[in-house]
C-alpha cells in the first residue's frame, strides 16, 4: 500500500525508513523538529487520558492527596463495580443507549448519505445541483442551532422524550452526502455501472453489489464521523430527553457532574464513567482505521 503513495509528503517519514536514497534529501534537523512537534502533540492529547485513567483508579481519599499523574492503591475494578452497581446499573443503560443512538444512527445515516451522494453523482435529473447545494448549505448549519427548532417540531407531534427524538435527527448527515457524492463521482466508473446494467442488474442491486464496494472507504469515513458526532452530541438529548432511562452516556455523566456539590460520591462515578465511555470510540477507530487508511491512499492515485 505504501508503494502507492510516493508523492505524499505527509507520509515521508515512513517512506524514508524504507527507501534509503530519499533520506538524504531530508536534513536531520527537519526530522528531529518534526518528531518534536509530533511528540508534543501526542503528549498534549494523551496526558488528559492518562490523568483520567490514573484518577479513575484511585479511591476518594487518595484522589486529592496523591500525585495526580501516578497511581496510588489500584482500585480501578472496585470503582467500576461501584459505578455499575450505582442506582441499579443506570450507567450501563446509558452506555447501551449511546451505542444504539450512535451505532444505529451512524449505520442508517451512512446508508442514506451513501445512496443520496451516489444518486447525486451518477444520475442526471433536473434539480440535481439545487438539491446538492441545499445539502451543502446544511453542512454550514451547526447541529446545536437546530436543536431548539427540532424540539418545537417534535413537541407538535408528541415525540419529545422518546428514543426517536434523538435517533431520527441523528440520521441526517449533510457532510456525508457531500463526501459520498465527491467520492462516488471519482471512484465509481460509469462504464462499470453501464456493464452491470447490461448484465441485467437493477439500479438497487447495482448500487449495493457494485458501487458500495468501491465506495467503502468513503462510507467508513462517513460512518466514523457520524458515529463520533452522535456519540458526542450532547445538546440535542439535553433538550429532548427527561427520562433518565433514555439518556445517552454524555448527558448522564453531565447530569451527575452537575450534582457533585451535593452528592460528592458522584464525582468518582463521573471520572470512571468518562473513562469507560471513551473505550467504544477507541475500539471503533481501531477496527475501522484499516479501511480509512485505504481510503486516503486510494484517493491519492488520481
Amino acid at each position, binding site marked *: 500500500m505504501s508503494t502507492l503513495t510516493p508523492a505524499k509528503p505527509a507520509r515521508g517519514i515512513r517512506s524514508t525508513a524504507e527507501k534509503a536514497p530519499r533520506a538524504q534529501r531530508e536534513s536531520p534537523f527537519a526530522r528531529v523538529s518534526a518528531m518534536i512537534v509530533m511528540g508534543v502533540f501526542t503528549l498534549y492529547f494523551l496526558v488528559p487520558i492518562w490523568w483520567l485513567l490514573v484518577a479513575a483508579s484511585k479511591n476518594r481519599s487518595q484522589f486529592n492527596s496523591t500525585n495526580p499523574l501516578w497511581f496510588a492503591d489500584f482500585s480501578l475494578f472496585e470503582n467500576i463495580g461501584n459505578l455499575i452497581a450505582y442506582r441499579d446499573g443506570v450507567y450501563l443503560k446509558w452506555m447501551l443507549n449511546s451505542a444504539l443512538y450512535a451505532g444505529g444512527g451512524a449505520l442508517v445515516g451512512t446508508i442514506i448519505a451513501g445512496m443520496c451522494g451516489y444518486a447525486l453523482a451518477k444520475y442526471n435529473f433536473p434539480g440535481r445541483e439545487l438539491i446538492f447545494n441545499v445539502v451543502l448549505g*446544511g453542512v454550514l448549519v451547526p447541529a446545536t442551532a437546530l436543536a431548539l427548532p427540532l424540539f418545537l417540531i417534535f413537541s407538535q407531534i408528541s415525540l419529545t422524550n422518546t428514543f426517536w427524538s434523538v435517533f431520527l435527527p441523528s440520521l441526517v448527515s449533510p457532510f456525508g452526502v457531500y463526501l459520498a457524492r465527491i467520492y462516488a463521482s471519482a471512484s465509481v466508473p460509469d462504464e462499470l455501472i453501464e456493464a452491470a446494467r447490461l448484465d441485467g442488474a437493477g439500479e438497487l442491486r447495482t448500487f449495493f453489489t457494485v458501487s458500495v464496494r468501491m465506495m467503502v472507504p468513503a462510507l467508513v469515513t462517513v460512518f466514523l464521523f457520524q458515529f463520533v458526532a452522535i456519540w458526542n452530541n450532547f445538546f440535542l438529548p439535553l*433538550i429532548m430527553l427527561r427520562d433518565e432511562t433514555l439518556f445517552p452516556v454524555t448527558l448522564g455523566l453531565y447530569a451527575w457532574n*452537575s*450534582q457533585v456539590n451535593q452528592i460528592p*460520591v458522584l464525582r468518582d462515578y463521573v471520572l470512571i464513567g468518562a473513562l469507560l465511555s471513551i473505550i467504544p470510540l477507541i475500539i471503533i477507530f481501531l477496527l475501522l482505521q484499516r479501511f480509512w487508511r485505504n481510503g486516503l491512499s486510494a484517493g491519492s492515485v488520481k
Partner: protein
Amino acid sequence: MQIKKRAAAVALLTAATVVLTGCASGSTTSGGDAAACEPSEGKVDLTFTTWIPGMEDVAAVWNEENPDVQVKVQTGPNGNGGTYQNFFNQLKAGNAPDLGQIEYDALPNFRVQDGLMDLAACEGVLDAKADFVDWTWGQVNFGEDDAVYAVPQDAGPMAMFYRADLFAANNIAIPTTWEEFAVAAEAVRATGGYITNFSQSDINQFAGFVWQAGGSWFENDGDNWTIDLTSPESVKVADYWQDLIDRDLVSTNPPWTDEWNNAYNTGSNWTWNSAAWGANSIASGAPDTSGNWSVALSPQWAAGDDAAGNWGGSSTAVFKGSKHPYEAAQFALWLNTSDEALTMLNKSANLYPAAKSGLELPALKEGVEFYGGQAIYDVFAEASAQVSPDFIWGPTMTQVYNDTSDGFKGAVTGNGTLTDALTSAQQSTIDALEAQSIPVNK
C-alpha cells in the same frame, strides 16, 4: 457564488427560526391569578422533573399510597446546567411537566415569564404556610399574601464550619463577630494558614453574607423591579472581604476544585462559612481531617445579634398548563412536609428541609462523626430560624452571578475591587432587565 448564496439563505432561515422561537417574551403579570383548583375525575398521571437523586423512590412511596394519583419522575442536570432552559422551552411548546424543581433564586424568572401556577386556591396550600420556616414562605409567595407560586422544599441556612483542633491548639478564640473573625484571621495567618477562602465564583455565598447583613439585592413593588446590588449592607460586606483579600488574610482558590479541597484537606484553610448541605462537601473534600471539625453560628456584624444568611435551597413548583393542579399541589405538600419523604430526601441527597417539622427529624438530631460527634444540624436549625424573610431574588440571577463573578475574579487578582464588581453588575443587571422589557426603577 450560487452555492454561497443558497447556503447563506439556509443559514439565515435557521437563525431566524432560532431567534423567533428562542427568545422569551418578557411579560409581567401582577397580582394573584389563582384559577379554580378542583380535584380531577378519575385516575391522574403527573410528571415531575427534578435533579435530586433518589426522588423515584420517594415518588414510589406516594404512588403506593395514592393509586389514583401516580407521579412519574423525570430527571436532568441541575437547574442552571440546562433544566431551567428546558422548562422554558417546554412551557413554550406546551408540554412542560406538571411539577418541577426550581431553586429559590430562579423562581422570580419563572414568575416573570408567567410559567408558574398560583396554588393559593388549592386545598391546604395557604394553610401550609405555618408548616414552613417563615422565611422560606417569603421565597415562594414573593410577598403576596394571597398567592403561592411553589412549595418550599429545602433550605441552606448558613453557619461556620471550623477546625476546632487547630483553633484550640493555637489558642485562638472562635470568632463570634466579623470583627473578631478578622482579628483571628491575622492570628491564623501568623501560623501559616488561612482562616478561610474567599470564593470568587460562589456569588450565592456572597449573597448569603449580604442576606445576613440585612441587605437585599432586589425589590419588586408588584410592577417594577428595584435593583440594589450596591446597597449599604452589600458594600459593607464587600469592603470587609476586600480588606481581608488586600491583607492576604484569606486564600482565593477557585471553589470546588482540587486545589480548594486540598487546602482544606491539608489544614491550610481553617473555616468555611457555608450552608447545611455543605457538611458533606467538606467530609468528602477533606477526608483526612475527619473528627477535627465543628460547626458554630456565623460571626455577627454586631456582638449579640442573631442573624444568619442562606445559601441555596429549592422549591417544588406547578407549571402553567398542568391539567391537574389540585393533585400536583397535594403531592408537593406531601413531598415537602411528610416526615417519611423528608427523611428519604435527606438520606439520598442531603436535603435540609424547609418544613419546621423536618428540622426535628431523627436523622437530623444525630451526632456526626466527621464533626467529632457534634449534633451539627441543631446549629443549622437555630440558624434557619434566624434567616431574614426580606431577601428577594431577581429575575435574571444567572446573569447577575456571571457578571458579579467576572468582577470578583478580577478583584482577587488585584484588578479592581469587590465593590467595583458590584457597581458594574448593578448596571449590567439593569440593562439585562430592560433588554427583556421588564420594568425597572432606576
